[in-house]
């Protein structure tokens, strides 16, 4: 109590606020527990989060009044940060129960992550109110075994963009395989070569950053950071391309065409990226329409030091790309992940065009590739009077996925 006002001290009130925030969070979890979960993984993720927040509530409630202000501040700051992070995750888990999602796809994607990432990995598929596919690739402290993958909410029932989940799952593979560590020595050499080969750019950068007390090692680190992020994205592209074949390219084109002028240093430029995709497709022997990425807009580097660093990172990425590409393909081959078979795609396409699902146990990749081929052959099915046909195509693809699950479960029982 304050000696003058009779009120509790700021320390006590601050601690009390933290306790109430955690209690409100736990009450929210209890409400979510009553939701209809389409798959157990979402419920398990919720249970894990709840378990940790019960421990946090206990820790907060046991703090004695004699605890120092510093400890209270630290506890409150940490609680706020964790609440902020996991409120977002709770929203994600809640949206995973929405019936607009293509629930049928969970089974084959979970098999993919268990085959490639970890046998006991879990998958929560959901959606975001953000027009980008995204993932938490087993990087949440309370959910180490969970891959969380989401697409934009308006597209969450769209089977045709499922291949982009392949890219997102690739981020988990990148982490589990520790690809960054394995490529770093070669990449570091490539960066040094590039810096030495472009003295004018190097000197321009150094002249600028020396004012902030930085030297060439700063430049090396900055290039490495950009190049590693870019190569991670390319690894994930190669992952999606290997697993989903041409459907990955179609989904990519659907989502990003005709490219974007805005450049992020963490991604290759938009035209470089489709160039890498076509290179990967060629290495895999995939047939791609030559005009798929025609008139693709390039994203230009920003002027100034940041753009110059990106320019050097781009050149190092170019030198290292094939190593990363082959790493992704070799990793998937070792995991026995099959590529689409032309016969499988043809069989599914034949069934879909007859108005029936595939009943022979096609892979997810074969189904979605056949779907894309039919859609493209029919001119895109975007006109108003083509909506019934478009809807039917989705229904048949999702039913084909379900039938494959049925067959697999019966065969493995």
């Amino acid at each position, binding site marked *: 109590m304050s000696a003058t006002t009779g009120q509790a001290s700021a320390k006590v009130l601050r601690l009390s606020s933290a306790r109430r925030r955690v209690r409100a969070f736990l009450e929210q979890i209890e409400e979510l527990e009553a939701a*209809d979960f389409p798959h157990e993984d979402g419920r398990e993720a919720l249970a894990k989060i709840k378990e940790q927040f019960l421990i946090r509530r206990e820790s907060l409630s046991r703090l004695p009044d004699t605890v120092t202000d510093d400890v209270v501040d630290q506890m409150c700051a940490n609680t706020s940060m964790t609440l902020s992070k996991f409120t977002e995750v709770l929203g994600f888990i809640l949206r995973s129960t929405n019936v607009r999602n293509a629930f049928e796809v969970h089974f084959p994607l979970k098999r993919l992550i268990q085959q490639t990432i970890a046998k006991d990995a879990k998958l929560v598929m959901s959606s975001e109110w953000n027009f980008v596919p995204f993932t938490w690739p087993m990087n949440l402290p309370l959910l180490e075994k969970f891959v969380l993958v989401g697409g934009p909410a308006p597209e969450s029932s769209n089977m045709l963009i499922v291949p982009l989940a392949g890219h997102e799952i690739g981020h988990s593979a990148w982490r589990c395989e520790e690809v960054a560590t394995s490529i770093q020595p070669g990449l570091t050499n490539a960066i040094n070569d590039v810096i030495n080969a472009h003295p004018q750019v190097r000197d321009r950068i150094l002249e600028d950053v020396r004012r902030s007390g930085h030297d060439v090692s700063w430049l090396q680190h900055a290039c490495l950071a950009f190049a590693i992020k870019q190569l991670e994205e390319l690894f994930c592209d190669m992952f999606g391309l290997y697993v989903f074949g041409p459907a990955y390219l179609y989904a990519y084109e659907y989502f990003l065409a005709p490219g974007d002028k805005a450049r992020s240093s963490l991604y290759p430029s938009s035209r470089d990226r489709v160039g890498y995709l076509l290179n990967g497709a060629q290495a895999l022997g995939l047939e791609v329409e030559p005009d798929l990425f025609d008139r693709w807009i390039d994203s230009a580097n920003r002027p100034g030091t940041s753009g110059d660093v990106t320019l050097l990172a781009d050149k190092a990425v170019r030198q290292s790309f094939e190593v990363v590409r082959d790493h992704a393909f070799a990793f998937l081959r070792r995991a026995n992940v099959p590529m689409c078979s032309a016969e499988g795609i043809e069989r599914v396409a034949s069934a879909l065009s*007859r*108005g*029936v699902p595939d009943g022979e146990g096609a892979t997810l990749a074969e189904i979605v590739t056949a779907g894309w081929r039919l859609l493209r052959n029919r001119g895109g099915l975007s006109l108003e009077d083509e909506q019934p046909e478009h809807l039917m195509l989705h229904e048949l693809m*999702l039913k084909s996925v379900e039938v494959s699950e049925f067959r697999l479960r019966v065969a493995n029982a």
Partner: protein
Amino acid sequence: MLSSNEILTALDADVDAAERLTVVPCPDREAIRQREATSIDLRLGRWFRSFRQTQTRSVSLVAQAGGGLRDGTAEKSPTKQHFVPFGDHYVLHPGRFVLGVTLEWLQIPPCFSGYVTGKSSLGRHGLVIETAAGIHPSFSGCLTLELANVGEVPLQIYPGMTICQIFLHRTEPGRGGNLGDFSGRRKPILKSPPFDPIFHKLREPI
């Protein structure tokens, strides 16, 4: 009514498309042959649709002028969809009703029609499926099932369990089947009845 041999012939992929019966996933042909069944057993699918009782005052069972059988009707209806994974179950309480769907996607050729009946073993526990629902020639899609518990205890129904059977008849084919139409769905559908001009006239003041 089609015999087991006729059913097996119709299920053959090599038969002429106009006479081909498609059931995906394909039923156990050996079981049909062995028990000389004149019907095909169908399994329960994973999607259900229940009514939102708390938000619904009443639902008109006649179509309004200008209305129709658009697929969007079901989406805007006062219903809630549920997805139940394999291995899990849906509890249908006494007196309650839910729409289910067959796991199988059917494509009936223009020369067949049929009807669906429940399994008597389930009926004896109080699970009633709309009796003798007709299936028209050229139907394509999963069958929506009207499931009601008229018994006295809650019933657990499982996706993948055998839920009903279809009997098939040979029919004089019409001029054109609608095998090429795009009405098939994998989820239970709640359609409005078609617009009835005679009924509409009866409602008009004279």
